[in-house]
């Protein structure tokens, strides 16, 4: 009976006797006692090969003192998890969008960056998307012309495409319909389409959509676009000469930020934009006189659009020239002091709530540190629940909750359309859009590039870099 030494992992078992009359299985059982590795998991390596259960000791020629090596562990055998992970590569394309975290880019079809960037900005309004989905494919109301209908359908399809794809989309259909509806966008210059003013495109598209989505065929007879973007203004028109005064109301889709030498900040520009002088016939004086028009916001939209009036018609060069002046704009805009007194009163309560909420959030942290009483804890958890619900309510788009959401006059920046270049009909338009996950994406035609939030406010002009042309703010609401 030869004795051998067996090496197992880092351990060495000297002097293990082999009973050569027994099959190797017995030897394996011996080792089982020593190592705790079940025989069927053991692999015994001898010079020249593995020891098999049915091999014959005499043929193997085991020598006294020979070194054997045993492999095997009592470890659990790795099993595949029942549900394997899902890999991005396997997902259908629309699901990959979620993983990528932003929607697709749009191919430039030849100077169509103004259209691409406009569509990317509008695409970021979920309410617009949802109301477009409800838009009937066939049923066109009589007061809507065919081309507007087609444009609305094309917009809906384009938004769908953007949501479904990871790779850039070519907005061919939309582009054709847009040109049909608004032939000015089809202008040719040297055989190719001309660059256009994005603001014009934006306005026209919104106008068409407001026409289409107002259609009486839909159940609620309201204007979706107006509800989302419309700003009610009340203006006091006052003539200094005659002392005449009248009130006018109007509804616009965007506020203008006038840029003059004194304007350094968006807020100042907006104030300027709401005051204007106009000349009109004065009934009392019997001639035309200068009237001062002083407007205030009387109704706030969910999405506040602000246009920087950067372009003016330069007669000598016969083109829209650009004001490069730097005008800062904030990520969070408060328009309270631009509102009319009526609206201010309405806003008081929701604003108080918003302040309270902010205060609670800040205060909560303080209280957590100083171990509060049980009562306080209960209140706190209530408060937490409350804020949780309200945030749910704000994120739920158009969902009718038992609590009504109220505007507060505070807005958050969600999209910026920038222009780079010296005139409106040249240069390059790019959209910078905040995604639902809070990340900013720069949509440079077919190329979406992630950006940092702090870089977004750097698009305020003052150089030849991209500068904001249209800003879109989303209302911060509270549940009442």
């Amino acid at each position: 009976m030869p004795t051998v030494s067996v090496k197992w992992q880092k351990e060495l078992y000297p002097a293990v006797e082999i009973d050569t009359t027994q099959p190797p299985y017995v030897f394996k059982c011996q080792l089982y006692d020593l190592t705790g590795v079940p025989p069927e998991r053991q692999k015994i390596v001898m010079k020249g090969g593995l020891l098999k259960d049915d091999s014959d000791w005499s043929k193997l020629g085991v020598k006294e003192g020979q070194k054997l090596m045993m492999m095997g562990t009592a470890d659990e055998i790795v099993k595949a998890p029942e549900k394997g992970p899902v890999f991005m590569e396997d997902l259908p394309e629309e699901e990959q969008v979620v993983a990528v975290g932003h929607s697709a880019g749009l191919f430039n079809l030849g100077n169509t960056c103004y259209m691409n960037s406009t569509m990317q900005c509008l695409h970021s309004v979920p309410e617009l998307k949802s109301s477009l989905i409800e838009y009937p494919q066939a049923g066109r109301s009589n007061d809507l012309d065919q081309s507007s209908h087609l444009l609305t359908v094309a917009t809906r399809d384009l938004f769908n495409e953007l949501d479904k794809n990871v790779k850039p989309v070519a907005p061919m259909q939309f582009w054709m319909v847009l040109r049909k509806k608004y032939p000015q966008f089809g202008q040719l210059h040297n055989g190719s389409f001309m660059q256009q003013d994005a603001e014009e495109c934006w306005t026209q598209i919104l106008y068409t959509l407001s026409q289409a989505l107002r259609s009486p065929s839909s159940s609620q007879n309201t204007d979706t676009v107006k509800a989302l973007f419309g700003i009610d203004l009340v203006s006091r028109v006052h003539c200094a000469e005659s002392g005449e005064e009248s009130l006018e109301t109007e509804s616009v889709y965007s506020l203008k930020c006038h840029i003059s030498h004194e304007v350094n900040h968006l807020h100042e520009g907006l104030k300027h934009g709401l005051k204007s002088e106009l000349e009109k016939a004065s009934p009392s004086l019997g001639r035309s006189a200068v009237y001062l028009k002083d407007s205030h916001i009387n109704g706030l939209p969910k999405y506040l659009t602000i246009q920087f009036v950067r372009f003016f018609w330069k007669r000598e060069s016969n083109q829209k020239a650009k004001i490069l002046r730097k005008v800062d704009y904030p990520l969070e805009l408060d328009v309270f002091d631009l509102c009319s007194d009526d609206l201010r009163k309405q806003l008081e309560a929701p604003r108080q709530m918003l302040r309270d909420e902010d205060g609670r959030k800040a205060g909560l942290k303080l209280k957590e540190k100083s171990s509060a009483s049980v009562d306080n804890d209960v209140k706190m958890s209530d408060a937490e629940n409350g804020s949780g619900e309200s945030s749910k309510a704000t994120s739920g788009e158009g969902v009718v909750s038992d609590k009504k959401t109220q505007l507060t006059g505070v807005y958050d920046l969600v999209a910026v359309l920038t222009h780079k270049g010296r005139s409106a009909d040249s240069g390059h338009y790019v959209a910078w859009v905040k995604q639902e996950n809070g990340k900013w994406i720069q949509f440079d035609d077919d190329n979406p590039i992630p950006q940092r939030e702090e870089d977004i406010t750097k698009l305020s002009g003052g150089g030849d870099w991209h500068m904001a042309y249209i800003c879109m703010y989303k209302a911060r609401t509270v549940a009442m």
Partner: protein
Amino acid sequence: MEPEPNNTGSGSGNPKEEATLKVPSKDPKKKDDKKDEDLSEEDVALKQQLELYVERVQDVDQGLQKVALESMRNLAGEIAQEYAKRVNEEAAVKDLIELVEQIVAFHMKHNAEPEAVDLLMEVEFLDLLVKHVDSTNYKRTCLYLTSSARYLPGPDDMSVLDIAYTIYTKFEEFPSALQIALYLHNMQHWMFVWQHVKQVFTSCPDLLRKKQFCYILARQGLSFELDEEMCADDEDREALQEIINNTKLSEGYLTLARDIEVMEPKSPEDIYKAHLLDGRASAGASVDSARQNLAATFVNAFVNAGFGQDKLMTVPSEASSGGSSGNWLFKNKEHGKASAAASLGMIHIWDVDAGLAQIDKYFHSNDNHVIAGALLGVGVVNCGIKNDCDPALALLADYLDKEDSSIRIGAITGLGLAYAGTQNEQVGISFPLHCIRDKLTPILGDPKAPLDVIAFTAIALGLVYVGSCNEDVAQAIIFALMDRSESDLGEPLTRLLPLGLGLLYLGKQDSVEATAEVSKTFNEKIRKYCDMTLLSCAYAGTGNVLKVQHFLGQCAQHLEKGETFQGPAVLGIAMVAMAEELGLDMAIRSLEHLLQYGEQNIRKAVPLALGLLCISNPKVHVMDTLSRLSHDADTEVAMAAVISLGLIGAGTNNARIAGMLRNLSSYYYKEASLLFCVRIAQGFVHMGKGLLTLAPYHSERFLLSPTALAGLVVLLHACLDMKAIILGKYHYVLYFVVLAMQPRMLLTVDENLKPLSVAVRVGQAVDVVGQAGRPKTITGFQTHSTPVLLAAGDRAELATEKYIPLSPILEGFVILKENPDYREEA
């Protein structure tokens, strides 16, 4: 050797000097005229001159001595000319040789060894040198001999090295003699080298020194079986054999790691350092990407190579339910699981016992890819290590004939890695290696075997028989190539077959010719490709300028579409030119031209060639070139450049490359395949947490490890078609780098082979060839205590007299002996 310029050196205004000066400068011209008429008379003149010079040199006057030395040099040049002439005319040269002998004797006495060697080389009578060296000048002589050997053609370099070997053994400088023997291995037949090595062992009586020899052999990656003549005592022989088998490599490596305090495992995120990038980092993906997980698997394997612990694969083995290790494994998709399982081998590399224990459980998996990975892992863990029981062979052999081709490839590749370079027809070898051949060659002939199995079999055989010129194996691969159908020949994997064939002749120069002839009969689709591959392998590491030109010539051709042979030709330039520094710099410049004028298939190979030339040696200008190419408009060029950035920085933790790669990772965040390459490169740069090197050259860039080079070449050839191989389902070819992985350390051990910490100076190596006296060998040094890391081009020397190193080259394991003459300074 022009006589005139040599005179300009001694122009100071001693009239006596000027007088003598005129003699040599005028005489040769006179003689030139006479030469044709009377030869013997000229000899007499020569002899007289020599005697005159010798007399003058022995003159007490310093000025006169100097002039005489100058003249002696002229004379030597004339003799060389005369010799060449007489050989042409087949005249007698005996009288000249007598003169030569006198001159050599004189030179050797007067610190002018290079001149003596030059003269003897001119007259082809180097044997004379052995007589004239003594203990004061043999080192300088041999240094000059060995470094000039690189620039000598054909058989001359052999004879020069042989002389150096003889001189070293004469003065009992055995480690250096052994190194020359190993150098010869790259060109010579195995038996020849075997005799030299044996002679070194038998002529050295000291056991400790024999141990040092074993360390040198182990670093070269040669497997040796010591016999009784080499070491009579059984126990000692076992100890020596253990060193050769590299079993202690893991221990030494971990000693280094502990000393440098890098034992803490690192996760791929620690390497990516995404937090240093601005907002670009891809939006927190909630879904796993199979490709990125695979990249993380590789990065994890490379970074934690050899440390035995990591944060993905080994963590939960202690945790209760064995849960999350399986989890990471199964976060890889299909063939990705193979690489994940094999990464365990990489993490435990060189530590066979622990590694096999970890891998074992994966053998029982019911997933074929996992089993394949486990098999490959066994190969990786055994790479460069020889174990008495041969566990790799025992475990893998059973899987060679399995149905599933991924299992087969795993087993075949595993065998190739584990037994790379072990084939040498050593007398009386008890190693059951023939059985590897018997097992693998039939697969090549198997008509049912799929192409990928055959391709990897060829590579495995090429690795096992690297540089052996084994005809049976060559035949088998040739037949396999001939049997391929037309469509098979178009497959990207087919390129591995000629490569397997080429590896058999790695560095063996002319021996390839017969096979190269045969390759001319192949299908024309593969003929040229095969030819280039064979040539580049055969002349790899020789520095043969003619071959470099040949390859450049091939690259100048304008190709029809579909031809691919220029890729291996470009790699061939790098493989041949990497032998020595001068040729290397020249090759880098030539590659720059190829970049400017070459077509796409050349341009995509250039970064890889640069990567090979500067492997683990991040030269700044190469780094800049690659950085530029990594933004190339052509994706394949960019991918190759990114991988090469990893290669030149491999194991260095180079901050600049790391920064470049980080920026690339944000630049390419959307392009999955390029991002994968960037990740792999990041893994390379931080390989072994910066303790490893991939350089196949070691021992002060003198010796080339054939297995290391073979591993790199396989990887680079695979990179020639990145899309089909590395980005496809054969990404485990990345594990071939394991062949080239070595700790870049100096670990000093005492007489019991226990680590011993001593002070050493580490600095930039200085070329001291041909310099008189005892010049400084390093510059800009810092003093450290061992174990210490050595960067490319670094050299170490002991900072204490207390110990004597047993190897003249301080790299890897070095045994220190106490200096008996050392006195502690009071």
